[in-house]
Structure formats: C-alpha cells, structure tokens
C-alpha cells in the first residue's frame, strides 16, 4: 500500500501554510526531519509512505497522484467549514474556478483517473486557519489544531497498514 501525504498552501501566509507544519510533524513521528522551509521536495518517509508539498495543486500533480494507492491531502480552511479539523473522503470530481488557475484535490483525482487511468483512494485533512498575514508563524489556535491533525493522520496511516 503506497501512501502519499500531499500538503499544499502558502507558508508565507501564516495559517494558509499549516499543511507544511503538519507534514513535518507526521514525518517526525516516523523519525524523519523535514527542512524548516519546503523546497518542493519529495521525501520517502518509509518504504511505503512518501510526502510532498506544493504551493498549490497543478495539473501535473495528477500524474504523481496516480502512482499511489492512497493520498492524504492536507490543507487549511476558514470558517466556511464548521469543523476545526475537517476530514473527508474524496472522490474524483472536476471542479473549476472562473477566476483563477486554482485546482482542487477532487479535480486532481479526476485528472488522474481520466488521463492516467487510476485515481487513488483519497482523504483530505484540513485545519481551520485564523490568521493569513505575511508571516511564517502559525496562529496559536491553528498550531494546536495542527497537532491534532498530526495525530489523526498518523493513526490513519497506521490503520492503512504502513
């Protein structure tokens, strides 16, 4: 079972980049130290667990995603989603925005399925963000929620057989 941890967001905009902090925390639980600042690196945390980070999802992400059995997308959200920690199973479903090149994880899965014939099982774990200024420091609330997200993701990975 090959699992991909796929975090995305802008770490220069505080809580928007919480996914990087979560990725580092998960990697640390498996004894791997990721750099302080993401370099678009892909890291093999274990033989079956890989992590990657991006500012945002892109069409090319679909090819990468299609090579895994399970993908855990990690993101942030605002008050438009009620839960402080949102976990949801995702299906492949094309979604577009009229105003930007924004790509959602569902779209990424849809592209993987359509272009490469395989959409992995996927969940999204998103953390409530509170502050989105020009800083790399998480708000206190989001930092606490990030710790919960790390625990939840580790349990999910372990229950997936890794």
């Amino acid at each position, binding site marked *: 079972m090959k699992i991909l941890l796929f975090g*995305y*967001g*802008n770490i*220069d*905009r505080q809580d*928007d980049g919480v996914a990087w902090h979560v990725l580092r925390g998960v990697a640390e639980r498996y004894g791997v130290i990721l750099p302080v600042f993401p*370099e*678009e690196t892909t890291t093999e945390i274990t033989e079956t667990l890989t992590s990657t980070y*991006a*500012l*945002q999802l*892109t*069409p*090319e992400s*679909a*090819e990468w995603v299609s090579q895994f059995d399970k993908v855990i997308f990690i*993101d*942030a*959200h*605002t008050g*438009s*989603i009620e839960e402080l920690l*949102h976990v949801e199973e995702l299906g492949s479903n*094309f*979604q*577009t*925005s*009229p*105003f*930007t*090149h*924004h790509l*959602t994880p*569902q*779209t990424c899965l*849809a*592209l993987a399925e*359509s*272009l490469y014939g395989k959409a992995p099982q996927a969940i*999204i774990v*998103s953390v409530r*963000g509170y502050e*989105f*200024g*020009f800083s790399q420091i998480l708000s206190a609330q989001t930092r606490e929620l990030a710790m919960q997200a790390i625990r939840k993701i580790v349990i999910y990975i372990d229950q997936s057989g890794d």
Partner: protein
Amino acid sequence: MVTQKITIEPVTRIEGHAKVTIHMNADGNVDHAYLHVNEFRGFEKFCEGRMVFEMPTITPRICGICPVSHHLAAAKAGDEVYGAPPPRPANLLRELMHMGQIIQSHGMHFFELAGPDLLLGFDADPAIRNVVGLIQANADLALKAVNLRKFGQEIISTLGGRRVHPVFAVPGGVNKALVSAERDQIFSGYHKALDTVKLGIQIIKGWAEANQEDINKFAVFPTGYLGLVKAGNTLDLYDGDVRLIDAAGQQLELFDGRTYLDYIAEHVENWSYLKFPYYKKLGFPQGVYRVGPLGRMNASDRMSTPLADAEMKVFKAMNPGKPIENTLHFHYARLIEALHAVEKVAVLLDDPDILSTDLLNTRHNYKGEGVGVIEAPRGTLWHHYWANENGQIQKVNLIVATGNNNWAMSKAVDSVAKTYINGQVVREGLLNRVEAAVRAHDPCLSCSTHAVGQMPIVVEVLDQQGNLTQTITRGE
C-alpha cells in the same frame, strides 16, 4: 417598479478574489454589471524594510500562478537599483525561464480552463463542460496539453531549481549556468510542444470560424492597447519599450518602462479594491487600455519568430489596420504567443552564449531606485523599488498585469450581461458566458492563497426589496 440584483460570488478563503453583480431593471433587462475585485495589496507594505537583493525570492510569493514573472521583474528592478546590467548570457537565461512560464501558463489556460467552454460549448451541461469532459471527447489532446505545460514547467525547474518559487535571477544576472545536458534535455521536448501549440491554433481557428456570430457580439468594445515592443514594434515578452496605441490603432506613446509614472495613473472606484490604471493624458475612463495577449498583439506589428509572425499576420488580417476588439480573440492571441514562446525556446537554446558562465555583473553603480517591467502571461507587470543607501527597501509600487485589465474585465462583464441576459429567468449557460468574459482575460487574483474545496458560483436574483426570487448555484 421592481429592480433585481444578481450576484455571482466565488466563496473564497480570504481576500484576493472577485464577484460579479448584475443589476436588472424593471423590464427584466440588465441595467449595468460590475466585476468587483477584493485584491489584497498589503504585499507592497510587507516588502518595506527588506533588502533589494531579497526581492526576487520574496515577490514570487505574491502568487503561485505567475511567480516567474514576479521573480524576473524583481530582478530587473534590482539590476536598476544596483546599477548592474546583467551580462548577455544572463539575460538569455532569464528570457528562457520566462518562455517556460509563458508556455505553461498559456497552455494551461487554453486547454484546461477556457478550452472546455470553447470546445464543448457555453451551453453544455456543466457536469461535462470541463477538462474531464474534454478528455472524454479527446483524450489524446488532453494528454498533449498536460505535457505542454510540463515542458514549460521543466524549463523553469531546470533553471530555477524548483517550479514555483525559483531561486535563479539576482540583481546583476543569474546564479546558475545552463549545462549542455540540460540544454539537450529541454530541446528534446521542443518538437512535441510545437506540435501541440500548432494543434491548439488549428482548434481555435476552427472554433472561431464556426462561432463567428458569438465572437462578434461577445464583449466587443474599443480601448487602448499596451505592451512591450522592440525595434520595428516587434512584440517582446521579456524586455523592450512600452508601446501604447489608441482604439483606432494609432500610436499614443512609445516610452521607456522606467518612466511609467509619467504616463500611467491609477483610478479608484468605491466598488472595487483593485485600482484602474489608465493613460494619464486622456484621463479616466477615456485612457483605459488592455494588456495581455490581445493587448500585446494589437500594440505590436510583428513577432521575432517565423511561425508566430505568420500567424500574427492572419490574426491582424481579421481587422486590417485596426485593433482586434473581440474579447474572445484573447484566446487566439494567447496561442500565437505560446507558439512564439516555444519557437523562442529553440532560438535561445541555439544561441552560442546560452552555455556561457559569464552570468553576473558584480560592478555596481548604485542608484537606489529601480523599475523592472516584464510581460507576464496575463499582461504588463511593473515592479518599482526605492531603497536607502544600504539597499534596504523604503517603498514599493507594483502595477500587476490583472490590474491593467481591470476596467476591461468589468466592461466585458457588463457587455456580455447586456447582450445575453434578458427576461426574468437567468439560465446557467448565460451565467457561464459572464464568467467566460472574465476568464478570457485569464485574471490572476489569487494573492498566493487558496481555498479548501472549489469556489462555488452562486447567482442570486433579488427584487428591489431584497427578496430572493431566483438562485443558481453551481459546483457545490
């Protein structure tokens, strides 16, 4: 009398996005429509106090959509601040990276964002009017489109070490040479990229021929046009002087981009956070202009690569001697630029200086102020820095590409709404046309943030008392 107000609002995480409001009159026709932009401009303030040499790595974080454009504009402004013009090989490599950005951005826009509207139809079921529908209709084309974008991205990552926030251009030059194996690797993708763009041009021309009626009534209006040109009014995406023409095609100005404050001013409206740049001498709104592919194509007379130049002649023959005003022709213009960018990659790779290691001018003649101007995929981008004697930023002014098109996008929304929406019930296909009017400009309002989930579009029809009479929601 009952009036209605329709709102199209993408639900986003924070600032940096837009909504459309359409105000209906008592007869059920559109009275007027606006595009409201809630763009966050705090980044300029954020840069104050930073060092000029840091700006090429800081400013790309404004946006994940066109980080290379900000990276290079910042480096160009830094060249000026330090009085250190880069050696020729460094400029060639910067231009090569920029071509990668143009290819990936234009490729993605046409094939994956605008393509579904054009190829599957504005009135097609939204469930299939998307890139997945496009894949089902033509899987081979879709894969070619992804590979075209990848070709552009790999140029960027080869030079910059990463695709999104490159570390490459520095004031006075660049910090990495291209080696022959990398040159050969990039060139190995050239022919396929060229074929894909040619195919795209065939598609858009076929579509235009079949949809002439729509093209001729879809947001066609006069403005000025602005873009960078070199000698002979040759379109240039990396460097050159700024050429501004009027709605009749006559040159208004040809000026050094560093003097932009003498020519360009910004108007403020109380319904949008994004300012409206205009040509000072004509005032607002008479002096508004369009940038991006349509603006550049109209503001120039020729292109420096043969296939794109030939295609430009076909483009300009649609309205001989005058600008092309049709908003939907942004798409055709965009593909001609993509063709030029792919051709230019081959030209640059073939230049004897491209493998040179003379990459950095270390002899500074410090000036303390600098302007960098470049053609980002979606239009002309200015970075202007004022620094103290230590190279610490005191003030920053940015005029971003999408800002230059602000008036035109709102006008396009107004025009399309008036043309297509009448009667009491607003159909989904009509809503999509309004979106398409914005999308044609390929605006970037992202401000480096994103949102969980998609951005559902909600259209609300309200009567004068604010009672909801109709709702269209798509994509939740």
